[in-house]
């Protein structure tokens, strides 16, 4: 998404990205970015919470209007939960047994093969 935003921006269309993966988006280097400190999959706000979604979009619109320079990130003040316990659960490799790892490896080989077949069939 970062690469697409860069291309549109360089071609004269102002862009804003709404996302959750702060390090990945900023590593790419994008013109404007609204960061929600939410689990990946909730770039546009909290599920079934219109107010959260409206506030998140408004941050993006305000950023389009006010950014003074590229690579401007605005951090949404919204919290997923009061504490940070959820942040330790994503891809927690420390919790996997050798059997889990072997199983996940097999699954990922399948996923890669399926993706490749679909890509080549497109």
């Amino acid at each position, binding site marked *: 998404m970062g690469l697409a935003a*860069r291309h549109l*921006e360089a071609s004269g269309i102002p862009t804003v990205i709404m996302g959750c993966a702060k390090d990945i988006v900023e590593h790419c280097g*994008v013109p404007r970015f609204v*960061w929600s400190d939410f689990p990946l*999959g909730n770039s546009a706000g909290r599920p079934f919470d219109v107010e959260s979604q409206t506030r998140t979009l408004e941050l993006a*619109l305000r950023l389009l209007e006010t950014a003074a320079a590229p690579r401007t990130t605005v951090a949404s003040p919204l919290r997923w939960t009061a504490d940070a316990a959820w942040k*330790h659960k994503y891809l927690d490799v420390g919790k996997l047994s050798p059997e889990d790892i072997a199983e996940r490896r097999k699954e990922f080989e399948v996923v890669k093969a399926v993706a490749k077949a679909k890509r080549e069939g497109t």
Partner: protein
Amino acid sequence: MSAGSTPEAATPGIQFAPEDDVAIRYMDRTREYYEALGFSPYRWAHFTDAPFTPLRIPLAKARVALITTAAPFQPEAGDQGPRAPYNAAAKFYQVYSAPVDSKPDLRISHVGYDRANTVPEDLDAYVPLARLQEAAAAGRIGGVGPRFHGAPTNRSHRVTVETDAPELLRRCREDGADVAVLVPS
């Protein structure tokens, strides 16, 4: 703070947030995970600068393009429900566009969202189409483009840069878009 002192001792009465309450380091986490599984590391796109085009018209007059990485539901592609495991068969490899006038059925089973912490049952949490339409109705933006656009989550940076990004630009221009809101899922 002097050497050897603790933050607590140095700042009586100030309650800092816990040290671990920071942005998740997804690149490190992903790298460690796939290394543990025995796969070679992915290289994320990286630039130290970025282009910039200032907004030249009021947003109230601007037509907004919406770009998503969500995928249209594909009946033949297996489980794409909110609790589906990662489903590579539901991926797509070409830019697609669909009209904004009816609520689209868009899923994210084809990407690595945070399955440990969230269940994507509400489209509006990953595709802000309804909220954009409300913003248009309220006069906050001039309007939403006639179509939204789907960007493939292609692991090939070359394809993204040489094929997909120019195609998205072409379609945004065709739609008369003045600005674009891009929402990865």
